[in-house]
């Protein structure tokens, strides 16, 4: 059966692997164009398929997309089909003539890679690269094309982001996307350039301060996050939202996909090893690949339970699904590993350490109550686990662990804690209710409802919480 529930809205298309630069951080190690590149006819046909599939916008990248002579033709076909087109370019070839061609072809936006102040940018990319990029900005401005900057952050430039910001503002740049340099391609050979996990907080702080200034709209890429209020506020400001929008998992294979130079279709152009290639448009139509029930399973069937480390027990786990899979893949070797570059993950590590040093069970227990009541379930969980270590015979602690683990979405742990509480007191109706809910969430719905009914009966129908939970279970609201 077709995956009709997945509606793609965007894609990234690496139209060529050929590039006129040899950037030190290039994730694709691009050099000359690779064999097998789609011909113009094939590429134009793909443009039609992209429109037919209903994409709203697409990003053409590479390599350097403007080294491909027919790129303006692809832009024209896509925009003519109603698909908004964005190009990411290093700007070397983006002179006035090219700017005019892109304008005439209906380009929507252009993003020019800028990785530092002139000296640093040129050292990362190519002598004269910054000057070309500056000229490209001016050319695009002349034609009224919305143009932004894209910066890959590494240890080479993290300390000069403020200077770069001033440089960009001085050039009249209005939008700025920043992304983490991940150890793939050329950057894999330069581990000393790769940021330390804790530096992601510096990036978030910088983005937040920049957004608050309001002089340039800054867009942290999907590999930066997650759920930090500073990050949420940055995005809210830059996107002009009236409320915070929580990260809802990677788009790959769900709301978007990638296309390689040779027509390979995959979830994300950064996750490009063979097992992640879902098909090739030379063999199957794009729609057929997208709607293949066996395609993109690594993402479409990704659940919190498949993750490891802190991500597996994270309160955001089922929503976040570990953040950017490519970050986990490149940093830890698997898309199922924990995301050490997540701001929340970093925070958890600190909290775990904090609570492990506390030896006052009563104080921890009180603190856990406060944390639960304020909705900080994950931190409460840390406090309670430490309380359990200090006071292992306290049934109340196990009940509380059951609750906090349930609210964190960790149903196995919730079940374990409630079972322990019931071992100590088989008439503990609160633990009984917790056990019922855990079983229900773990898929044993009938057994969960049976136990919840038993708990309600034991209280004589006086515990409104148990009654309410039973209603949720039987009404299909859980």
């Amino acid at each position: 059966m077709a995956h009709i529930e997945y509606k793609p809205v965007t894609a990234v298309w690496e139209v060529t692997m050929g590039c006129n630069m040899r950037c030190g951080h290039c994730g694709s190690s691009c050099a000359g164009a690779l064999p097998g590149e789609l011909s113009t006819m094939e590429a134009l046909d793909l443009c039609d398929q992209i429109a037919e599939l209903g994409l709203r916008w697409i990003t053409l990248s590479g390599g350097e997309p403007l080294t491909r002579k027919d790129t303006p033709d692809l832009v024209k076909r896509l925009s003519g089909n109603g698909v908004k087109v964005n190009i990411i370019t290093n700007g070397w070839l983006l002179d006035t003539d090219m700017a005019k061609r892109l304008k005439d072809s209906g380009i929507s936006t252009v993003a020019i890679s800028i990785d530092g102040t002139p000296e640093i940018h040129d050292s990362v990319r190519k002598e004269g690269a910054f000057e070309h990029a500056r000229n490209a900005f001016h050319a695009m401005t002349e034609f009224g094309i919305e143009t932004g900057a894209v910066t890959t952050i590494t240890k080479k430039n993290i300390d000069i982001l403020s200077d770069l910001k001033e440089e960009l503002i001085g050039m009249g740049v209005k939008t700025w996307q920043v992304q983490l340099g991940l150890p793939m391609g050329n950057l894999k050979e330069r581990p000393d350039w790769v940021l330390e996990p804790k530096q992601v907080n510096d990036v978030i702080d910088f983005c937040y301060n920049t957004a608050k200034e309001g002089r340039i709209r800054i867009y942290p890429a999907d590999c930066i996050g997650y759920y930090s209020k500073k990050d949420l506020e940055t995005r809210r400001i830059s996107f002009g939202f009236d409320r915070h929008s929580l990260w809802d998992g990677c788009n790959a294979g769900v709301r978007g996909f990638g296309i390689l130079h040779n027509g390979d279709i995959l979830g994300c152009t950064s996750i490009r090893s063979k097992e992640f290639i879902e098909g090739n448009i030379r063999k199957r139509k794009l729609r057929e690949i997208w709607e293949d029930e066996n395609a993109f399973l690594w993402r479409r069937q990704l659940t919190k339970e498949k993750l490891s480390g802190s991500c597996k027990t994270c309160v955001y786990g089922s929503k976040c699904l570990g953040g950017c899979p490519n970050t986990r893949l490149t940093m830890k070797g698997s898309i199922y590993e924990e995301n050490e570059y997540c701001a929340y993950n970093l925070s958890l590590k600190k909290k775990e350490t904090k609570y492990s040093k506390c030896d006052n069970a009563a104080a921890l227990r009180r603190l856990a109550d406060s944390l639960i009541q304020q909705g900080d379930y994950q931190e409460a969980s840390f406090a309670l686990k430490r309380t359990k270590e200090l006071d292992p015979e306290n049934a109340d602690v196990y009940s509380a662990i059951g609750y906090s683990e349930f609210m964190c979405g960790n149903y196995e742990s919730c079940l374990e804690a409630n079972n322990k509480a019931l071992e100590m007191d088989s008439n503990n109706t609160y633990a009984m209710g917790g056990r019922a809910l855990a079983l229900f969430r773990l898929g044993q719905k009938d057994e969960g409802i049976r136990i919840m009914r038993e708990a309600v009966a034991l209280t004589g129908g006086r515990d409104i919480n148990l009654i309410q939970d039973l209603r949720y279970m039987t009404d299909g609201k859980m």
Partner: protein
Amino acid sequence: MANEMVVFQGKSFSVGLQSMLGSTAYGWCLTGLPKGVVLLNIETEKVQSPNTVAPIIQKFWFVAVSETDKKAEIEFTMMNFTNLSATDQKHNVSISVVPSDSDEFAKYSENNDAMLRSISNAAIPYGYVLGAQDPLLKYGYACDVADTPTLKYGYPCGIQDATNTNVKYGYTCGANDATAVKYGYPCGTQDATLMKYGYPCGVEDATLKYGYPCGAEDVATGVKYGYPCGEPVLKYGYPCGDTPALKYGYPCGDAPVLKYGYPCGDTPVLKYGYPCGAQDATLKYGYPCNIQNSAVAYGYNCNAQNAMMKYGYFC
């Protein structure tokens, strides 16, 4: 006597102390404030009483702006305001400040929508000062050792409770009880036609019972106690789902003008509360938000003796 409070840096908390200030010259003064704790406001709250002379609750609002010393204490002194050197007694509250994390994260649980559990569960005890052996505020009402005989659950009780029929559960009763006020609602001779359990009754009683339309529909379970039964979009008067305009059955956005409504959103002063206003914000059948919120359940005492419904509210 000392009490212990665990408070969060950056979040307000209050200490309520009973005195006879107003009817006497004696009242509580803040005489010692540790570094890192700031006084925000002082307000007084009347204790419901038919008596001319009644105690008040002096409520001191604080916020911890930074970590305190390990043994930080707030000191209150009972003073005679006409003779400040005449101090009567001291009351110390020790403060443990939980430092805030510099990075804050969005609150989230995949079970939040479905599982809006109240704090009334076995794992989470009631009490204003969480876990303190001698809570400064209990069940949302000020008390202390001295309060115990005269103030219980926020209402004068104790010795008076048993013998003085003028005050029971905070409502006037006694000799006039039968005809004047019962359970806080007018009753008596007018009872049959005017108000019953706080709801209009009498002639309208046939169509309005306990404040809710009933009648034929009632029996047919189409409407019971005023709420459509079995209706997926409305249950017990509360819209299900994420209807933006209605939350908990009351229009959102009407916080300033809504009475007995629930201000939606993150109104810092009052949440799930009742009448708004400077006095109300802290405690009157309402639920103080912030850290205190967590410890004050529904403003009513719930215990084993409680029925599921008391004065119209679940507890």
